[in-house]
């Protein structure tokens, strides 16, 4: 009568297809939610999943149902303690469906819909929002895997890696080629000889047989069963691992001229760089250095959210970075990446010093130095006219093909990527 079935091992994620449909449906809102969320969260949290809240607008399931207000309704409820017929009760504050089973149709009266995005989904949408090409997305998202791989066979190695099959195959072919008598053949010979002796065969024939047997013995002694030249070992190749740690310097001008929009762009760029480095290095440290006319290493919160007034002297930030590197991140042990965001202002008297620092100290010790100049979204006109900022002109003098220095102007989110393309292009060339 009864069947019991264990379904626990059935393929999981039956609802995956539904979820994808749902995300596609809610795409616009989810992208917006992710955008907000990535603005709020710390750079190093970018990898985690996220609980997002979207308005139910696009994913509402409407149905004909009565409205929650107006008209005459009767409710029957339990727990009468003191009321008698004809009593009146003050109308409760907009309780909606709480009082009966009418009102809100499925208990989903609220306007917002909250759910959790997995890490993959969050990254997907985050990267999509930056309009990265698929190939790059793949690269950024790929998870690290370091392993020793098999690489054919070798004639030397440790006994533990001995490949028996190969060794025996070589041994067999050598024995066949050199006509080493098989044990069975020798036994047969000995048996025939014994029989012949027992029968009293003529001496000449016996002698012949004895010599033959003797030759067999000699041959099998000269030709060993396994010869050192047969032996083969499994060969393993260790995939070269990069230095497993990197440090990422985020330099930003925080003087009054940097708007929220500019800071957001900078943050996006830092996030992307972090993600990228995270894929390549086991541990990534981040150092935040902000500067006005003086530079200071700060925590992330202060970096993005506190404002400071003062002039703009870029070289102070470079000096600060140099100091931090000397103190904590020796070049021999760390891959150093730096990203600088600025609106391009600099004190004129400081330009020469900045250029020198950059060319002689900073860039040589970096794997990559990215300078992004953020601009307000609306002043396209000015930049289009080609008015170059102080800092841009200064850095341009440093730029040369052999230095890992990339410079970009960024006005909107989608322009962040090209800076990265440079980075990837370098990676490819170097590999």
């Amino acid at each position: 009568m009864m069947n019991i079935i264990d379904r626990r091992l059935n393929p999981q994620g039956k609802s995956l297809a539904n979820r994808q449909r749902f995300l596609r449906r809610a795409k616009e809102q989810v992208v917006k939610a992710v955008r907000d969320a990535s603005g709020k969260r710390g750079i190093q949290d970018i990898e985690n999943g996220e609980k997002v809240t979207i308005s139910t607008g696009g994913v509402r399931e409407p149905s004909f149902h009565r409205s929650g207000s107006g008209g005459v309704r009767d409710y029957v409820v339990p727990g009468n303690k003191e009321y008698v017929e004809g009593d009146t009760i003050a109308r409760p504050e907009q309780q909606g469906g709480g009082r009966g089973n009418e009102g809100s149709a499925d208990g989903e009266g609220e306007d917002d819909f909250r759910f959790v995005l997995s890490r993959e989904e969050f990254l997907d949408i985050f990267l999509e929002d930056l309009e990265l090409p698929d190939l790059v997305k793949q690269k950024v998202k790929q998870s690290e895997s370091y392993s020793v791989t098999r690489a054919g066979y070798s004639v030397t190695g440790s006994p533990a890696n001995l490949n028996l099959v190969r060794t025996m195959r070589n041994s067999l072919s050598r024995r066949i080629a050199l006509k080493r008598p098989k044990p069975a053949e020798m036994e047969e010979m000995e048996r025939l000889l014994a029989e012949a002796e027992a029968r009293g065969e003529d001496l000449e024939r016996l002698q012949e047989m004895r010599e033959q047997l003797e030759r067999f013995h000699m041959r099998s002694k000269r030709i060993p069963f396994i010869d050192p030249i047969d032996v083969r070992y499994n060969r393993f190749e260790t995939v070269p691992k990069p230095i497993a740690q990197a440090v990422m310097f985020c330099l930003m001008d925080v003087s009054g001229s940097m708007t929220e929009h500019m800071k957001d762009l900078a943050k996006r760029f830092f996030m992307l760089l972090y993600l990228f480095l995270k894929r390549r290095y086991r541990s990534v440290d981040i150092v935040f250095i902000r500067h006005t006319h003086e530079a200071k290493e700060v925590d992330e919160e202060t970096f993005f959210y506190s404002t400071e007034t003062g002039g703009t002297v870029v070289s102070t930030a470079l000096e600060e970075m140099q100091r931090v590197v000397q103190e904590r991140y020796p070049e021999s042990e760390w891959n150093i990446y730096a990203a600088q965001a600025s609106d391009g202002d600099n004190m004129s008297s400081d330009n020469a010093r900045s250029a020198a620092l950059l060319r002689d100290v900073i860039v040589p010790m970096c794997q990559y130095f990215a300078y992004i100049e953020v601009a307000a979204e609306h002043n396209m006109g000015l930049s289009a006219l080609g008015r170059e900022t102080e800092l841009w002109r200064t850095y341009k003098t440093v730029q040369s093909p052999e230095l890992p220095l990339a410079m970009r102007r960024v006005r909107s989110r989608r322009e962040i990527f090209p800076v990265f393309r440079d980075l990837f292009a370098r990676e490819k060339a170097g590999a």
Partner: protein
Amino acid sequence: MSAVISKPEGLLYDGADWDYDKIKRVYDAIDHIAIKEMGLNVYPNQIEVITAEQMLDAYSSIGMPLMYKHWSFGKHFARDEMMYRKGFRGLAYEIVINSSPCISYIMEENTMTMQTLVIAHAAFGHNHFFKNNQLFLQWTDAEGILDYLEFAKAYIAQCEERYGYAAVERVLDAAHALMNQGVHKYPKKRALDLRLEQKRERERQQYQDETFNDLWRTVPKPAPGQKPPRSVSERKKLLGLPEENLLYFLEKKAPRLEHWQREILRIVRHVSQYFYPQKQTKLMNEGCATFVHYHIMNRLHQTGRISDGAMLEFLHSHTSVVFQPEFDDQRFSGINPYALGFAMMQDISRIAENPTEEDRYWFPDLAGSGDGLEAVRHAWANYRDESFVLQYLSPHMIRKHKLFSVRDDAEDPYLLVEHIHNERGYRNVRKLLARQYDLGYLEPDIQIVDVDLAGDRKLILQHRVTNGVLLDENDAKAVLRHIANLWGYEVQLVEVSATSEAVLKEHAVAAPSGSVA
């Protein structure tokens, strides 16, 4: 009770862990009590062990093991998962499907006592209800449902491939919006089978032959091409109007749908129809299952098959299931169907076995009939929530739960307590409570009343408003837009008062631009 106390055969299990042997033993013991002692009649059982994630899966696809794909299921999954992860809500211990064999899901995390409870509750309680209740017998096909869903799933997947996600999604969205208006509330004429049809045809032919009169040939015919204009009533009759099953009407009559779109509407309609009895019997179904598990667990304990510890664990979860917060409690969210259902079943059993004077006055036929189990089995088979409450809610129950009715008239500044648990109030409280379970009353009465065939093919719907409660405007607009997408032309909804026929409100949605697909 006709029970014979069987000889104690020792404990069926000990401790919290479960395994397949224990489940088998427990199942057999429960089977014995349920079939032999309680006289239940069930479909063959299939018990499936699943994980929490699979339970969430099952939740999101309205409890069915297979379902076509749609984003709304993904949405429900996301919400349920979130609630579950955050600990706002536990998962149900079980889900049971009205099919043959009757499939019950049990979760791997449950303790052995919980598994016992779930088997008693779902595999016997719900199962018996599915197999015996009139509504289920009349409306659902337990044998065929899984096959049908299999077909539906494959068909919709095929459509997605052939016509694209977006097109299929649009039809499904519209169909889902109309799901509640997609059921036949009254049994329609049975489809005739071929043989009967042929027989009828022969008889008609025979009748014509017998009554043949050549003179009819000479009666003058109206000149061709001069059709008299059809009257409104004739037109309505031809279209089968008025029609309250909106999905059915659109499937059959919408002029611009492709055949696959009609088939999708049909699938959604069938699914909706399948769940229609469940919506009408929530109180009874849970009451029945709770009553059954309570009886079985007690019998297991009486006969020494489960330990005192297991019994206490059971009682703990049983009492939380049948807990009914009072109306002024923070936790109050309507009447708990488990609580009221269970209490009423026990009450019926009590009335049948130990009636009071009052019961004899209120239930002359039932009171003292002797066999409590027989009485509840009768109720399970023949009622739905509304008629069940109307028939069986006793004054004793009304007093026990201190039920009272409140009238909320939007024009008054306060709520009025109309009826309470006293002699004058019993009948009215019972009537009003029964109405709270009447789907025909709960769901707005919306019908398609006319189509302007001669003009712009405008589809006209009517909502007959009771008690002055109009439709939620935003949702109504959205649903109308869906209908317009399916219908292909303008759609209008008129809300008229059921008593005075006065038009209270009108909504209209213009014809969708472009084609339907």
